[in-house]
């Protein structure tokens, strides 16, 4: 079985552990074993990133070195983590001076980064390592009569030259997975726009406004739910639908790609942690057809 090392990031284990569980279950079903990373640290996204380039490189570099020690590739669940690790990998691979400096810091623990480790986002693993054909074959209970909008996330798809996951202006991986599972992927205004998550730190109300716009645009296009591929986006798009000036009758379920694929692959809902979802996934689950 193929193996890949999971880098959880700070947010997933605390705010959305179900995403982690669902990822492990779905990848396991599709032939990829997820291995734990021990002794990790924050990748440095957004905050350390904004204050010191080398500090950022060192923090992400250590993650890369930890995986390299076990001869594993890294699977990142959070878009920001995935972006940070890839950007720093690109930096350290191409700047010898920086790499030397980081390795010096790491040498005390016996760690070294030489460039062997690859960083993969979940969508890359599904598209490139597993492949649509294999996923299609593994679908046991397809969906029917369900319209969903795909949200990719900025750090997942941009900058393309470094992250190389999908076409940044016209991404299709999640849409294809939605269709393979039997639902209809809906195109909507602002499909590639940011969810607003990164702005929470500086201005929560603006960030919420941005997230709500996204949900509104998806609903206007006829979507009954939104499928995400980044932990941070998922939490943000869920959260903006609650609160004072929101209308709970207009709420649509927000669901990570793995929790969407899981039931279609025949994985039990409690393994996927779906009952923990803040937005009710009923409309999605009720569209599941009986086993083929």
């Amino acid at each position, binding site marked *: 079985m193929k193996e890949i090392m999971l880098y959880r990031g700070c947010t997933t284990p605390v705010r959305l552990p179900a995403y982690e569980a669902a990822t492990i279950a779905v990848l396991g079903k599709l032939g990829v074993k997820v291995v734990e990373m021990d*002794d*990790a640290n*924050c990748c440095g996204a957004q905050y350390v990133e904004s*204050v010191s380039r080398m500090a950022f490189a060192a923090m992400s570099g250590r993650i890369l070195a930890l995986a390299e020690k076990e001869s594993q590739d890294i699977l990142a669940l959070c878009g920001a983590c995935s972006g940070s690790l890839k950007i720093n990998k690109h930096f350290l691979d191409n700047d010898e001076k920086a790499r030397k400096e980081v390795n010096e810091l790491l040498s*005390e623990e016996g760690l070294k980064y030489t460039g062997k480790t690859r960083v993969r986002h979940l969508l890359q693993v599904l598209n490139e390592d597993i492949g649509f054909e294999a996923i299609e074959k593994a679908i046991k209970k397809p969906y029917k009569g369900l319209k969903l909008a795909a949200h990719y996330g900025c750090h997942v798809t941009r*900058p393309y030259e470094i992250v190389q996951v999908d076409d940044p202006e016209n991404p299709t991986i999640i849409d294809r997975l939605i269709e393979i599972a039997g639902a209809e992927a809906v195109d909507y205004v602002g499909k590639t726009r940011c969810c607003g998550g990164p702005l929470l730190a500086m201005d929560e109300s*603006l960030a919420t406004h941005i997230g709500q716009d996204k949900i509104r645009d998806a609903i206007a296009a006829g979507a009954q739910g939104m499928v995400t591929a980044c932990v941070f986006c998922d939490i943000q798009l869920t959260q903006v639908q609650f609160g004072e000036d929101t209308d709970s009758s207009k709420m649509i379920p927000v669901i990570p790609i793995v929790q969407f694929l899981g039931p279609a692959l025949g994985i039990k809902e409690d*393994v996927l942690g779906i009952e923990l979802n803040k937005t009710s996934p009923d409309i999605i689950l009720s569209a599941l057809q009986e086993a083929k």
Partner: protein
Amino acid sequence: MNNETHTPSSDFAKEIALIPGGEVINKCIQCGICTASCVVACVDDQYRPRRLIQKILIGKRDEVLKSDQPWLCMTCRMCEERCQEGVSPAEIFHAVRILAVKEGHIPKVFQITVEKVLCDGWMLADAYTDFNEDEREDLGLNPALAWNDTFTKKVKKKYLAGEESA
């Protein structure tokens, strides 16, 4: 708008051009496609990436470094994707942040969070409760998260020695 006269200077732009990310700032032709693509600009009347870059280009160093504006960028890189001249406002504002921090300008929330991360090794140490542990166990996940804080403390010492928070 500022009524004081400002003497234009290209020095600040040259300074930014030396910081990684700011190299091609002089290619900006001020066409506005970045702002038209910016999600933050659409919800915040004052935030205009093009205008911020304009200020850098004409040398309003003080105003830019002290401003909150560069910190509003979400690094979503839509501007970078669409700019036809090869400029990345996201990266330029990143370069501005680095410079601003060096000169002691950093929004409180960033300062506090950086402190936490480097001290605990990760961001949400305080938020991880027994409840979360149980939740993980129920899901069949390892409740022991095993974060490492030694390295981040080393990083802090080496790179951010002057950043001691209160």
